[in-house]
C-alpha cells in the first residue's frame, strides 16, 4: 500500500508524543510516592495503567478517523485518547484530579470522557464494547457515515460482552470496528492459559464477519488493516474484528513487579520496540532525517510538558463538587 508520507510522519509524531507522555506520567507518579510507596499519595494517586509499547495500535487507526467517530477504550486508555486527539491538557488535568479536567476530577485516568472528539473508556474489562455497538446503531439510525471503534485487550475476548457485542453488531450490520490489543497477558495470566485459540481474530468467523490478524506490532500494518475495516464500516458494509499482537513494555499497573513475565520475554520486547524501529524505518526510507526526528521530539515533548504544566497549575475541585453531576 502506498501510504501518504504525511500519514507516516503524523503516526510517528503521535507515537513519540504517547511514549513521552507515558514516561512523564510514570516519573511523576513515582517521584512523590517514594521511599515508602503509598498508592494514595502524590500528584497522581490511584492505579495507573500505562500503554508504552502499544502505540502502533492507536496511531495506525488515527489517520482514518473523522469528526464524530466514536471510540471506546479500556483501563489503559492514554495512547488511544492521544491518537484520537482528545485535548491533552484537559485529559492530563483529569489524571491529576483537577477542576479543569475532562470530568472535573470525577473520573480519573480510567474514566476519561470527551464529547469532541467522541471518546470514552472504562475500568471494567469489555465494558465499552456494547457501548460502541450502540454508537454504531445511533450512527446508522441517524444516517451519518460515522464509525464506532471499540478497543479492548486479549483478556476481554473471554468476557460475555465481547461475544454479545460481536453478535449484535453482526446481526444489525453496524459500522463498528472491534480492535483487540493482544499484549499476550491479562495482568499476569498468559493468553495461552486463558484463551482456547491462538488468535482472537479467528473468533470473527463465529459471527460471520471479517477477522484480520496483525501479527506484529507494526503501525503500518495496523494502518492498512484498520483502513480497510473502517472504510468498510463507513460505507455501510458492516463490522469487522482486528487483532493486533502488541507489546505492553511495562507492568500491568505502575508498581507491578512484573515477575510473571520472563527476562527473555521483556528483553525481546525492548529489542523490537516499535517506536525505535518505526523511526529507523522512516529514516532509512528517506521520509524523515535524523534532525527531523530531533525536531519532532522537541515539539512533542513540549506539548507533553505544556499539558503537565496546565494540570499542575490548575486548581483542585472544591470538595463539595463531589455532590454535583450525579444527575443532569
Amino acid at each position, binding site marked *: 500500500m502506498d501510504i501518504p508520507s504525511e500519514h507516516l510522519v503524523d503516526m510517528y509524531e503521535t507515537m513519540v508524543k504517547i511514549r513521552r507522555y507515558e514516561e512523564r506520567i510514570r516519573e511523576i507518579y513515582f517521584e512523590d510516592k517514594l521511599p515508602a510507596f503509598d498508592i494514595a499519595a502524590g500528584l497522581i494517586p490511584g492505579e495507573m495503567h500505562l500503554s508504552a509499547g502499544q502505540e502502533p495500535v492507536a496511531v495506525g487507526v488515527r489517520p482514518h478517523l473523522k469528526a464524530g467517530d*466514536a471510540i*471506546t477504550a479500556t483501563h489503559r486508555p492514554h495512547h488511544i485518547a492521544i491518537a484520537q486527539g482528545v485535548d491533552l491538557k484537559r485529559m492530563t488535568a483529569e489524571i491529576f484530579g483537577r477542576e479543569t*479536567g*475532562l*470530568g*472535573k*476530577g*470525577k*473520573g480519573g485516568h480510567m*474514566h476519561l*470522557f*470527551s*464529547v469532541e472528539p*467522541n471518546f*470514552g473508556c*472504562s475500568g*471494567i474489562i469489555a*465494558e465499552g*464494547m*456494547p*457501548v*460502541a*455497538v*450502540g*454508537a*454504531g*446503531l*445511533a*450512527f446508522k*439510525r*441517524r444516517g451519518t457515515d460515522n464509525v*464506532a471503534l471499540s478497543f479492548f485487550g486479549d483478556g476481554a475476548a473471554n468476557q*460475555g*460482552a465481547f461475544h*454479545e*457485542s460481536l*453478535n*449484535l453488531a453482526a*446481526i*444489525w450490520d453496524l459500522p463498528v470496528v472491534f480492535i483487540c490489543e493482544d499484549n499476550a497477558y491479562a495482568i499476569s495470566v498468559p493468553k495461552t492459559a486463558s484463551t482456547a485459540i491462538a488468535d482472537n481474530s479467528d473468533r470473527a468467523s463465529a459471527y460471520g464477519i471479517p477477522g484480520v490478524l496483525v501479527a506484529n506490532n507494526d503501525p503500518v500494518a495496523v494502518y492498512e488493516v484498520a483502513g480497510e475495516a473502517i472504510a468498510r464500516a463507513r460505507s455501510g458494509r458492516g463490522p469487522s474484528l482486528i487483532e493486533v499482537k502488541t507489546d505492553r513494555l511495562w507492568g500491568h499497573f505502575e508498581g507491578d513487579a512484573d515477575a510473571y513475565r520472563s527476562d527473555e520475554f521483556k528483553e525481546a520486547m525492548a529489542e523490537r520496540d516499535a517506536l525505535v524501529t518505526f523511526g529507523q524505518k522512516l529514516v532509512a526510507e528517506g521520509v524523515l532525517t535524523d534532525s527531523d526526528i530531533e525536531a519532532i521530539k522537541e515539539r512533542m515533548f513540549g506539548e507533553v510538558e505544556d499539558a503537565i504544566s496546565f494540570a499542575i497549575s490548575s486548581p483542585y475541585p472544591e470538595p463539595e463538587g463531589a455532590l*454535583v*453531576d*450525579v*444527575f*443532569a
Partner: protein
Amino acid sequence: MTITTDRKLTTQKAIAEAIALEMEADDTVLLMGEDIGVYGGIFGATEGLLDRFGPERVMDTPISETGFIGAAVGAAINGLRPIAELMFVDFFGVCMDQIYNNMAKIHYFSGGNVKVPMVLMTAVGGGYSDAGQHSQTLWGTFAHLPGMKVVVPSNPYDAKGLMTSAIRDDNPVLYMFHKGVLGLGWMTNNPRATGAVPSESYEVPIGEAAIAREGDDLTVVTVGLSVHRALDAAEMLEDKGISAEVLDLRSLVPLDRDKIAESVGKTHRLLVVDEDYQSFGMTGEVIATVVERAFDHLDAPPMRVATPDTPIPYSRPLEQFALPSAERIVEAAQQLVSA
C-alpha cells in the same frame, strides 16, 4: 395536575400509549428488548408499536442483556433516546455492569459533559407463583446505587405520565412496572389496574409522591402494587374506625422526603409497606427520613410490612405468606394506632 377524562385504560395500555406518543413526536426514540416486537412485550408494554413504527425503531434483540443494554447506553450518548426493556428485573444479574457501572456513572465521570438519556423499563413483582427468579421487585437495590432515577407507577394515569417524563428526561431512568398493576387478562383480576387516562400526551413529574387516599390516624407509605394493597387495607380499616392516609411514592429516586415528613406531621404514625426485601431497603430509608425530619411528630415507633429476608417462594401458601397483603397491613395499622 389532573386531567379529567372518561376514557379508561389498563396500565399496560397506558404505558404503550405513552411510548407511542413519544415515538411519534421524537424520531430519536427507539425501543429494544426481548420479544418487544412481534410479541408486543411479554407484559404488553410495547403492544402495537412494531406495526406502527417498524423494525428499525422497535428492535427485537437476542437474549443478550449486556449487549443490548450497553448498546442503549452507547446510543443514548450518541444522539438517540433509547428505551430498553429488561424482561424481568430478576435478570439484572447478567447485565448489571452495564446498568450501574456504565449507564448510571458516565454522566458523573464526564463532569456532566456526557448525557445518557435512556429508559430501562422492566417488569417487577410477585404474587402469581412465578418463584424466586421471576418475582422480585429489587427497586431498593437500584435506588441504592447513585446515578439513575427509579420510577414505580401504581396506576394507569401515573404510568403514562411517568413514562412520558422518563423518555424526555436527560438522565437514565429505570422504569419498573409491577406485573400486578398492569391489568393483564392472564393475571388475577385487579380493578385498580384500570383507570381514567387522557388520550393526549402529559407528564407526571418524577420525584413527586401522591396522596392516594387521605387520612388522619396513620400514614402508610408505599409504592407499586402495595399501593393497591394499602388502599384495600384502608377501606377495611375505615370499617374499624381507623383513618389511614396512603402515600404512593411513585419514584424511589428522587424520593419525595418532604411529602413523607409532611404526612407524618399530620398523622403522627408511620407504617411503611414494601414488596421488596425488608432489610437495607426502602422501609428503612423511609423510616430514617421520618426520624431525621419529623421525629418530634411521631407518637409511636414506626412499623413496617415487607417481604421477609427470604427468596420469594413458589407454593401459593408460602408466597402469599411472604408478600405484603391487605390483611398484614390492617393488622400492623391496628397495632400502630393502639400503641
